[in-house]
């Protein structure tokens, strides 16, 4: 059928030639007519087109197969319809959808072809662009999606969104439900923020809301960051980036760094760390479930502090968690199990790094204080007897004596690393810990627990004392905080001052907290001095901070400093300088702890005894020897001095000497062979001697109270001598021996 008679067509073209891209060709494709629209779109003028082949606008992109099919169709008399890309005169292109209809004469023979075309360049471009974008969205790693005022996800989003958000399809879903299915609070914040953002016209305000929207979230499979962009149609574009691998890698790196730091800390404090590990093993062997709650807490807390010092990875966290639990329940076997497994994980790290021998006690020889005392004693007698260079021997003797002691200075240095790391953890800037004092000051190992407990003082300083760098800046302070440790010793004390240049303590806040924690009442607090109030920070369960963390803030920290301080009979004064700094002034009796308290006391007792024997009883002492062993006869007794130190004196007399003394003591005519009297005699003499000696003792010891003479079991005396610092003197007289022992009892151990 032929709808377009020549007449009709020409008529139509005249009417619509401006709008319709139309042309007529003969049977060979030679152009015989073009419409104005054709001229316009192709860029040729009519002259250039008429008489030319239709091929003039053929675009090289078009496959020849299409034209073959086209010609086959129209030459067989059928209409062809299809999309064709054409070439303009200026080499640009345009797309048309063309309909080509064969033209017939009256006999029905084909005499040419009429084509009408519609410009579809824009549509083609749009489709192409869409495909390109979709292609891009499908291949891009980041998630792009757009959602509207109703939180509905729009059709075009990148495929990665599905993966990141773990969904099969997102189209038309509610984005808030998908993103924050596992976090109600975040979801509400997100919805509220977006609603406000959609509501406001002001782009600055929109930006403010965007800055407040969640920046990161997660589902079971992925962690991702979220960026937002407001689009011109007031919809929101989300850019999601999968950061799961990145975060896991970071986590792994951090873990690795922590392990390294732990190994470093342990390697630099090898001796101490092994000691702490060994004592924790002993602690774990206790029946912890039955232990008194306070003792258990104190013990755990101290170990937490000690292990934190060596940056022990698992044990510190494990103890921290158990401590938190212990506020609500009792310690049970489950806790013990957790503690053990965490501890062995740490031990595994250590043995992996240093080998199994590292923790083995075989590696070092344990020398007891008694053994050292024996060596000292032997050395002394060798020095007395020998002709060789005594000075040299005395030097050796001194160094052996020092084996029992440690340099106070060195003990303090162990805190340097911890302080540095703690500050780093919470972004405070700090100068290295400054320690000032004599490196020669040697103290008994008993000081060690106290020095270790100081970790809590340092942590408090760093966490609560030293301000953030920006605040320090505003107060015209050096942005780096300073913590100082200064110590000196006099005859009787070590004075240790630990000070920081932080913000000090807010007294009124402290009182409030103390009242809150039921440490005091408002009425009582009014009557207290500032010093008494400051001392509250040492109370159990007291803390000036509201949150509890791995670093500090459980309050028990400073309490354990006080506990250790009391063990060595020290006192502390707090000097608070609000906004300028805080100092702790520790005074610790020092003589009490030095090596030869017993020797020193014995010296005084010997002189009293000697003068007592010669002046009062008229017996000359032939020689006085230091002895390692006390020979206990039938006539002996003990007497105790008690107070901050407990000293036990033992006196033992040979029978002959007892008779001689008795003879002197008793008036004539009194039966001198009375066994009861004989038995009492040693006690009387001891009481007399010690009573006389007491006045000569150094000040600290003068304040001790003298007990009444007792006859302690011989075995007990021997055990005391074995386990405590003891000095013994043996007096030789013509009537036999008198022996005196001075034993420093460590009652708190």
């Amino acid at each position: 059928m032929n709808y377009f008679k020549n007449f009709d067509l020409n008529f139509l073209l005249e009417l619509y030639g401006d709008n319709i891209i139309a042309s007529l060709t003969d049977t060979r494709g030679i152009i015989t007519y073009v419409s104005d629209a054709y001229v316009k779109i192709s860029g040729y003028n009519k002259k250039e087109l008429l008489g030319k082949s239709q091929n003039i606008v053929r675009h090289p992109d078009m496959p020849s197969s299409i034209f073959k099919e086209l010609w086959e169709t129209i030459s067989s008399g059928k209409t062809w319809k299809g999309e064709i890309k054409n070439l303009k005169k200026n080499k640009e292109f345009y797309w048309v959808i063309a309909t080509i209809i064969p033209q017939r004469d009256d006999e029905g023979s084909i005499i040419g072809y009429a084509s009408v075309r519609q410009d579809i360049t824009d549509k083609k471009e749009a489709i192409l662009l869409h495909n390109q974008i979709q292609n891009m969205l499908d291949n891009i790693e980041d998630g792009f999606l757009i959602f509207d005022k109703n939180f509905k996800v729009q059709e075009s989003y990148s495929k990665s969104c599905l993966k990141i958000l773990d969904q099969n399809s997102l189209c038309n879903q509610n984005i808030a439900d998908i993103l924050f299915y596992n976090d109600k609070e975040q979801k509400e914040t997100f919805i509220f923020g977006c609603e406000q953002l959609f509501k406001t016209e002001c782009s600055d305000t929109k930006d403010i809301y965007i800055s407040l929207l969640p920046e990161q979230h997660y589902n079971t499979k992925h962690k991702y960051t979220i960026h937002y962009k407001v689009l011109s149609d007031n919809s929101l574009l989300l850019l999601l980036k999968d950061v799961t691998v990145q975060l896991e890698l970071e986590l792994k790196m951090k873990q690795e760094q922590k392990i390294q730091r732990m190994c470093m800390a342990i390697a630099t404090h090898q001796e101490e760390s092994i000691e702490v590990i060994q004592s924790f093993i002993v602690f774990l062997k206790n029946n912890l479930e039955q232990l008194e709650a306070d003792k258990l807490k104190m013990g755990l807390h101290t170990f937490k502090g000690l292990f934190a010092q060596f940056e022990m990875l698992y044990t510190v966290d494990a103890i921290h968690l158990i401590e938190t639990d212990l506020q609500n329940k009792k310690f049970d076997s489950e806790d013990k199990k957790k503690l053990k497994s965490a501890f062995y994980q740490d031990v595994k790290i250590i043995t992996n790094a240093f080998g199994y021998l590292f923790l083995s006690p075989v590696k070092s020889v344990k020398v007891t204080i008694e053994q050292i005392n024996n060596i000292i004693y032997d050395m002394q007698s060798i020095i007395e007897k020998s002709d060789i260079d005594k000075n040299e021997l005395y030097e050796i003797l001194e160094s052996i004596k020092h084996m029992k002691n440690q340099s106070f200075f060195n003990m303090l240095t162990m805190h340097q690393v911890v302080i540095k790391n703690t500050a780093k953890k919470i972004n405070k800037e700090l100068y290295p810990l400054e320690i000032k004092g004599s490196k020669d000051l040697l103290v008994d190992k008993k000081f060690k627990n106290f020095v270790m407990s100081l970790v809590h003082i340092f942590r408090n300083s760093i966490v609560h004392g030293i301000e953030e760098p920006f605040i320090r800046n505003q107060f015209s302070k050096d942005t780096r905080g300073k913590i100082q440790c200064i110590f000196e010793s006099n005859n009787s004390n070590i004075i240790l001052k630990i000070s920081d240049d932080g913000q000090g303590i807010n007294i009124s806040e402290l009182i409030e907290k103390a009242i809150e924690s039921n440490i005091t009442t408002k009425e009582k607090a009014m009557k207290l001095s500032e010093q008494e109030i400051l001392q509250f920070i040492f109370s159990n369960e007291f803390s000036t901070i509201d949150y509890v963390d791995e670093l500090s803030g459980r309050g028990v920290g400073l309490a354990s400093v006080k506990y250790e301080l009391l063990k060595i009979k020290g006192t502390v004064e707090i000097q608070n300088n609000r906004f300028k700094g805080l100092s702790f002034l520790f005074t610790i009796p020092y003589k009490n702890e030095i090596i030869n308290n017993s020797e020193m006391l014995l010296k005084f007792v010997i002189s009293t005894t000697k003068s007592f024997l010669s002046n009062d009883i008229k017996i000359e002492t032939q020689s006085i020897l230091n002895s390692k062993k006390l020979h206990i006869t039938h006539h002996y007794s003990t007497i105790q001095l008690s107070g901050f130190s407990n000293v036990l004196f033992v006196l033992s007399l040979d029978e002959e000497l007892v008779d001689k003394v008795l003879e002197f003591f008793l008036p004539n005519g009194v039966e001198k062979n009375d066994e009861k009297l004989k038995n009492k005699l040693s006690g009387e003499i001891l009481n007399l001697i010690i009573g006389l000696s007491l006045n000569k003792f150094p000040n600290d010891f003068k304040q001790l109270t003298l007990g009444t003479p007792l006859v302690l079991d011989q075995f007990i005396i021997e055990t005391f001598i074995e386990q405590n610092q003891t000095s013994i003197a043996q007096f030789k007289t013509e009537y036999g021996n008198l022996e005196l022992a001075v034993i420093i009892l460590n009652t708190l151990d």
Partner: protein
Amino acid sequence: MANILIVDDAEIIRVSIKKHIEDLGHTVIATATNGHEAILEYKIHTPDLVMMDISMPEVDGIKNGIDALCEIMKINSDAKVIMVTSHGEQRLVMEAISKGSKGYILKPVSKEKFENIIEKLDL
């Protein structure tokens, strides 16, 4: 040069904000330690700008910085109030913005942050 009212319950924050603001050449016309005080001070001084801590202890029914903000907006609907806030308070800040606050500053405060926000407000 603007007259500024600082509202914060923490002395240390008040002091540091004051320092920053004065360094930038502005005047701190008054300070307040809670929302209730803030409203009173606002009435007296009508400052050009208020730096308002978002969470403060409740005084006289003024629960927090947002309540105080609302009261101030009632007194002067063109009041310029900037919220001072910590991490984790996003939801509260959004609420404040929706109630007319002109912006917020995240603690820790710094001179740069003040400079930026005061510049934006065109005081």
